[in-house]
């Protein structure tokens, strides 16, 4: 009797697991398919793609990649994005941490008021402000220049907000101890606060980098020359030019763009998670 009960339990478990694996497989297929198909076509000869033979056709080739590297500016686009995103990230780390420091460790008039003002800007979507911003950068003569993709994004309300939360966790004792040791604010900021908040800084860095990397509307409005274009707009360009029938080359370019991001993300995964969870809890 015991034995039959055991068997029943085991059977039920096997059935349950089969259903789970099936669901997992279906969902994994849905998630990965568009991706896999894109990468796969990037290795097919243009002729095969044009004829619609996606499998069973000729052999795989790197031709599309060669075309992408030699006939398009994809490498230049990547470099542009890399430069822009790095500059924006560095600026965010610096200005946001300074701002957050002021809100946490400095005592000044209107501190709370200013903080709410900063908090308030988080509600204002940049996308809704492009009209005057466009006029501003035009007036400043920044159009079609690297700086136009960097200067408006040197700081971030979200970054200040997030780092303020982090800095608030630093024990007050540390500040008092450093006062006793005679550290100036600048020294305390640089020697204690920044090292103490490494993880949050990494999280912010990952965010800022991805945010800058994924910029689309603004560069599209403010830059016109190919050699300034960041990758997102570069891909748009490739895809809308008359080469658009050359799907293999477009897919190869997409693959070239996506691989570095994937690497960054797999390394930075942990920080994203903690950042997002922080956002959801606090």
């Amino acid at each position, binding site marked *: 009797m*015991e034995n039959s009960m055991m068997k029943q*339990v085991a059977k039920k478990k096997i059935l349950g697991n089969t259903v789970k694996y099936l669901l997992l497989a279906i969902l994994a297929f849905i998630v990965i398919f568009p991706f896999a198909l894109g990468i796969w076509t990037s290795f097919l000869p243009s002729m095969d793609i044009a004829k619609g033979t996606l499998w069973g056709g000729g052999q795989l080739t790197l031709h599309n990649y060669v075309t992408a590297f030699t006939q398009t500016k994809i490498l230049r686009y990547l470099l542009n994005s890399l430069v822009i995103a790095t500059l924006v990230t560095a600026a965010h780390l610096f200005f946001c941490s300074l701002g957050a420091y002021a809100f946490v460790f400095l005592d000044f008039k209107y501190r709370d008021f200013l903080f709410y003002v900063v908090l308030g800007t988080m509600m204002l979507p940049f996308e809704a402000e492009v009209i005057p911003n466009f006029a501003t950068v035009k007036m400043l003569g920044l159009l079609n220049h690297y700086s136009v993709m960097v200067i408006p994004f040197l700081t971030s309300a979200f970054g200040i907000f997030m780092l303020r939360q982090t800095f608030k966790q630093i024990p007050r004792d540390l500040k008092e101890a450093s006062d006793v040791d005679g550290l100036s604010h600048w020294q305390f900021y640089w020697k204690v606060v920044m090292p103490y908040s490494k993880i949050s800084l990494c999280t912010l860095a990952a965010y800022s980098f991805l945010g800058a990397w994924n910029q689309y509307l603004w560069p599209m409005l403010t830059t016109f020359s190919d050699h300034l274009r960041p990758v997102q707009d570069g891909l748009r360009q490739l895809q809308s030019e008359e080469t658009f029938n050359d799907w293999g080359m477009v897919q190869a370019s997409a693959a070239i763009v996506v691989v570095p991001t994937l690497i960054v993300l797999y390394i930075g995964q942990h920080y994203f998670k903690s950042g997002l969870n922080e956002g959801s809890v606090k």
Partner: protein
Amino acid sequence: MGIELKGITKTYDHSEKPVLSEVNAEVQDGELFVIVGPSGCGKSTLLRMVAGIIPISDGILKINGQVMNNVPPKDRNLSMVFQSYALYPFLSVADNVAFGLKARKMAAAEITQRVDDALKMVNLTKYRDRKPRELSGGQRQRVALARAIASDSKICLMDEPLSNLDAQLRVRMRSEIRELQRKLGLTLIYVTHDQTEAMTMADHVMVLHDQHVQQIDSPLGIYNHPANHFVAQFFGTPQINLLTATTSGNGTATQLIIDEYLQVSLDNPIAAGTYTVGIRPNQLGMKQVAANSGNATVINVEALGDQTIIEAVMDNDVEVRIVKDGQVHVELDQRVAVTALGPAFVFDDHEALIAEQGGVENDRIVAVN
């Protein structure tokens, strides 16, 4: 009736060595059964197997005569109090207590009744609408107790329920839990790593160590007749003294000699050889002697007020602990003569108890393994 463990063995997935092997025990209906052992010895593992949270690798578990090995936890009809309390943070105190009742689809009126009763019993009526995070550690612990009370199961499992409380509260909760268990007539399996809890609460104690049951007995039975080195050392503070002794002469003998001053005479003769003798600190006598006599030198004195703990190093370099009632004045480096007063335990080279010396009339020797 009660709970019966027969040859229970547990090996976790991905590991070769069993955590527990061949655990046998019988828990009587309505008793408070304590499982005690150092942390990591598998106490929680054993309890979780009884609860059905993790599967049993081998052996048979019977509850009220029924084999329970493959019965899911919800059908075992028992309640459990967790070390971390496992309170649902998003539910109020009352809803936490009602959770299991609702899951079992009990009638609303009866749920209210039970929750009210349970909260009253642990003095939390005032806090029924608070969230767990708005309670102190002791109050959270009571919510966990109330949850067990509200369920009508007569079997309750507790996994170190007091380990997160401060010392004073722990002492108070010990007697409260004991009282509750009696009042509700619960069969309670109580896990702890604290030998004092085991000694003060249990009807029966199971000592776990090194995958095996070391001994099962009443608290005093364990104290008075420790089955082996481990049990002898685990119970009683300060720790028991373990000393090497040899028999006198070369036939069977009743005299065990540690040194000139310290000797133990047994009720029954044992074979010639070398043994380990265990003597509790309060069963050692100590006399202050002149500089060039005696068998030990005092190295530390702790005056606790109502008793004094003296540490001395014997001439063969073994340290001993001696407890004297009241306040005793001894200088450091004082030479002393250490002697045996009352009961002593004799262990063989497998560390198992093989003989005892007087003091206690009852000479029941419980040796497992």
